[in-house]
């Protein structure tokens, strides 16, 4: 025992003599993620809770915490705190009454102001969650005020609508479109009989997105741009390693005029020879 110079014996102190009050401790464990003192965040502020459940309303507070309903339509419903013993819920109530004494809600002011979408330079390409398309979609807001929804799951143009809203992603729900699409393609498969595409990403060509995907060994590119005329957009396809004719099923709905620079278009189906398909352009005019 040469190594150790001093030997001590001490009695242990109680784990329960921690200075923090039980109510504060329990509040931090069960409530603090969603409730702040004077600001509504996920749930109402402690000031609001204390106003709803003043000193005489302890029982109602405990009942609510164990079987919560929905008081505020804009807020999510609180998970039940039934696993927290009554005595602890009571201590939390005492704690929130104590800390809110003399405190007022910060009115009309969130802790952090809601982000306001800035005015963005167009074209703007944004990962998006859009209606009637995969949650992994891309919105392309063109300079001429048209927006395209392109689905990275099906690897295809879904629809176009008039609107220049650039906030198109939300983790909560698909974006609300400012207008109904004026053109939509809805065939089961765009490239008839070719199988499941694999999305590879996109590159920006003069700020316009060129999507890349593969079906088997065939490589596809689709470049989306505003057209030369107002309310016009173009889709330039480049396809490599194709050995046979190809058919694009463009059937769907809408009022747009569809022009192709190659192949033959009949009843919404575009047929191209392997050579024609190396590079061709679809022009959509509203």
């Amino acid at each position, binding site marked *: 025992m040469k190594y150790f110079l001093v030997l001590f014996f001490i009695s242990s102190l109680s784990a329960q003599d921690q200075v923090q009050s039980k109510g504060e401790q329990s509040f931090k464990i069960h409530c603090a993620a969603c409730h702040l003192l004077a600001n509504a965040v996920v749930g109402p502020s402690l000031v609001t809770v204390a106003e709803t459940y003043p000193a005489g309303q302890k029982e109602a507070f405990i009942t609510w915490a164990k079987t919560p309903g929905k008081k505020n339509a804009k807020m999510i419903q609180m998970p039940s705190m039934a696993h927290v013993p009554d005595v602890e819920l009571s201590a939390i109530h005492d704690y929130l009454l104590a800390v809110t004494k003399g405190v007022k809600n910060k009115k009309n002011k969130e802790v952090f102001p809601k982000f306001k979408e800035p005015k963005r330079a167009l074209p703007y390409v*944004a990962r998006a969650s859009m209606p009637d398309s995969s949650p992994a979609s891309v919105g392309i807001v063109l300079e001429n005020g048209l927006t395209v929804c392109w689905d990275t799951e099906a690897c295809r143009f879904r629809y176009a609508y008039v609107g220049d809203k650039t906030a198109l992603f939300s*983790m909560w729900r698909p974006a609300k479109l400012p207008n109904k699409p004026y053109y939509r393609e809805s065939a089961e498969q765009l490239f008839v009989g070719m199988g499941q595409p694999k999305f590879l990403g996109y590159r920006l060509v003069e700020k316009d997105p060129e999507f890349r995907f593969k079906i088997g060994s065939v490589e596809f590119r689709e470049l989306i741009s505003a057209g030369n005329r107002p309310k016009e957009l173009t889709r330039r396809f480049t396809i490599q390693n194709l050995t046979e004719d190809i058919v694009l099923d463009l059937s769907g709905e809408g009022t747009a005029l569809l022009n192709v620079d190659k192949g033959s278009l009949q009843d919404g189906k575009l047929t191209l020879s392997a050579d024609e398909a190396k590079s061709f352009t679809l022009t959509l005019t509203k």
Partner: protein
Amino acid sequence: MMKHFLLSFLISTGFSLGQEWQDYYHFEKISPPPGVDKQVGGVTLLRDGKVACCFNSGEVQLYSPESQSWSLFAQGLSLPLGILEDDDGSLVVTQWAELTRLRDADQDGVADEYETLCNDFGITGNYHEFLYGPARDSKGNYYISLNLASNGAGIQEKIRGPWKEIGLDRASHLGGDWKKIKGKAGRMYSRVPYRGCVLKITPSGQSSVYAYGFRSPNGIHVDSQDRLWVTDNQGDWRGTSPLYHVTEGGFYGHPASLVWKEGWTRDPLKISAEELEKMRTPAAALFPQGELANSPTQPIDTIDPSLFGLPKGELLIGDMNQKNLIRFLPEEVAGTLQGTLIPFLESDTLGIGNHRFTFDQSGSLWIGKTHMKWAGAEGLLKVSWNKKVPFLATGVSLLKDGFEISFNRPLKEAPVLKISRHTYSYHANYGSPKVDLRDVEVLQHALSEDGTRLRIELPEIVERRLYTLQFSGASDLEGKGLMGDILRYHVVKKRE
């Protein structure tokens, strides 16, 4: 006893003998660029000395410490929650729908290629399906972690990926009576690939499931020894928030993702906790809820001690709700990595919402903050060491019969020591109270000749218990207080 009481009363103020972290570290706010949502999803140092930062509104911006200015590198990403620089100078980011490589092919300072590195996983449109990472190992493999969906909501009609037909039917998830039946979905659920898993992506883009059993794994990191670490959030099957050392094929406790195991056919909601207990790997460390962390975030390696003042070989970890960072001091016992958590930089100046981290070339720690409408903060904080050395515990070693704790300079005297141990319930319920909390008698403790090592002898060591060692009032020879005076060691394995 009276003397004891008085002593503990005097020193249990929570402050270490008047020392504050601001005596050792300088905190500076860095203004984010205009026009972005100031919540930071990722931050990383680039080889040219710039700091790349991704913001919740979808931008990647580069900060030049020289000119103290921002430049836009990429935009239009969906909730990017992590960023790294690859060997070729491209930036790799996670976003909602994929792992993406951003390349500046024409070298004009702005990304023009958004290459999909991995999208081999499902999305239901549920609001909780975050994608975290990437972490990268020395061989260039990437690791990403996928959040489960929450029964706070159902799913959207259009989903990505095949729907797993185990559990509540898909139509019921679409809304309608969701509130009435959501309990049948499980508190957190995994019905499209590979929610609740960690995926590995090779440099050539092949992805595979690496590990199972996660809930909200908002912290994934490969350390300098190629060890993968993942933090997770308290909730169902998480009595308190854990830190895991993750190895291939492992199961880390939340059962929802078991459906992605090859050949798996059983409903995770119908497997007993006893059976799951036998399958799960215990946490290397546990963060007591409400005390140390409620929602831990990214781990990062500590750097050269001459730059930031912390020993090398530790992890620094953040948290959303507590105004402290957390040091993790790992050690291997009987082939298992476990260790000690110690609070760091605890102060109002640090604040909460500490989400993502990087060290810059001068050794300053950059902290990106977020809140996601939960408790948290936003913006960037830069923490620099002022070269005054705080008095720290620098090593905690489990012994057969106790602990040995090392300090970076001599203790003035053997401190007042309070030790307790507890565990948490492993169950489907949300969180857990402390279970089997009891005081631990210190048989004796002894200081080494040079005063830098303290040996603590306990009657026994119990596995699967979190030991809390409180050093109230410990100080060095000059009377400077111990910074970070509560040590929490999770004993997974005893020392034989």
